[in-house]
């Protein structure tokens, strides 16, 4: 007897944990980890809606698979960027990467 909104609330909480992480962490790798949390929160939402609304069609599951794909690509490219920045700037602190400042 679990109502749909329970899942949604948990997902929302996880999502905003991730948001807080992205906004507040200094380390770029930590920011990426927080982004992964946000993606997971979204996935929970999608699966929950799929199960409660239309379990006959596997569209929700497929959707989650695509999000997984994008997440994997994002992680790979993001971490490559972090490493590249680390090489050239000797820093992974997001605050210090402000060469686009006015």
């Amino acid at each position: 007897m679990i109502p749909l909104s329970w899942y949604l609330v948990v997902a929302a909480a996880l999502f905003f944990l991730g948001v807080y992480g992205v906004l507040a962490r200094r380390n770029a790798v930590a920011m990426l980890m927080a982004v992964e949390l946000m993606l997971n929160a979204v996935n929970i939402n999608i699966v929950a809606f799929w199960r409660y609304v239309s379990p006959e069609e596997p569209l929700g599951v497929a959707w989650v698979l695509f999000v997984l794909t994008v997440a994997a690509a994002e992680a790979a490219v993001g971490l490559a960027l972090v490493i590249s920045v680390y090489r050239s700037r000797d820093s992974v602190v997001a605050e210090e990467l402000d060469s686009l400042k006015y």
Partner: protein
Amino acid sequence: MYIEQFVFFILALITLLSGWFVVTDRNLFHAALAMMLTFLGVAGLYVLLDSGFLAATQLLVYIGAISILIIFAIMMTRRLMKTTEPAYNSMWQGALLISVFSGAGLVYVIVQVFGMSNYLQKPDTSDAVLNGTVVTLGEWLVSADHLVIPFEVASVLLLAALIGSIVIARAEK
């Protein structure tokens, strides 16, 4: 069905608690380990939602691949990872404020829209349908009527990401 609710609470607790560690722990390596725990909790939630396939995928992709990738990145940038440095940047109070407000707002909307009465129960879908999900999914992914184009686009995206990350991360000659 109190057992199911109990399991849900346990899993939610694991997920959120370890998520908290991910965003707060000063030691990045510990944070990464906590993140794996979060992923595990999410996988548990998937099982609770009758989607064992996704739970397995979650284990493989997130815990098996992405987490390891992140740990690698942490280790490669380890020289800078001093636990004495502050974990947060200068605007963390503002970030906390906006996150809490937005999260509260979202929860408020969820409760307003779905309340506690709508969708109290999962629809009574037969086990046969649920078990057949993976088969249908497989057919959909390669069927021209459904998802073959997104599927192919996703594969191209992965390839591009693969090549792109190699090009970006390669040392300058």
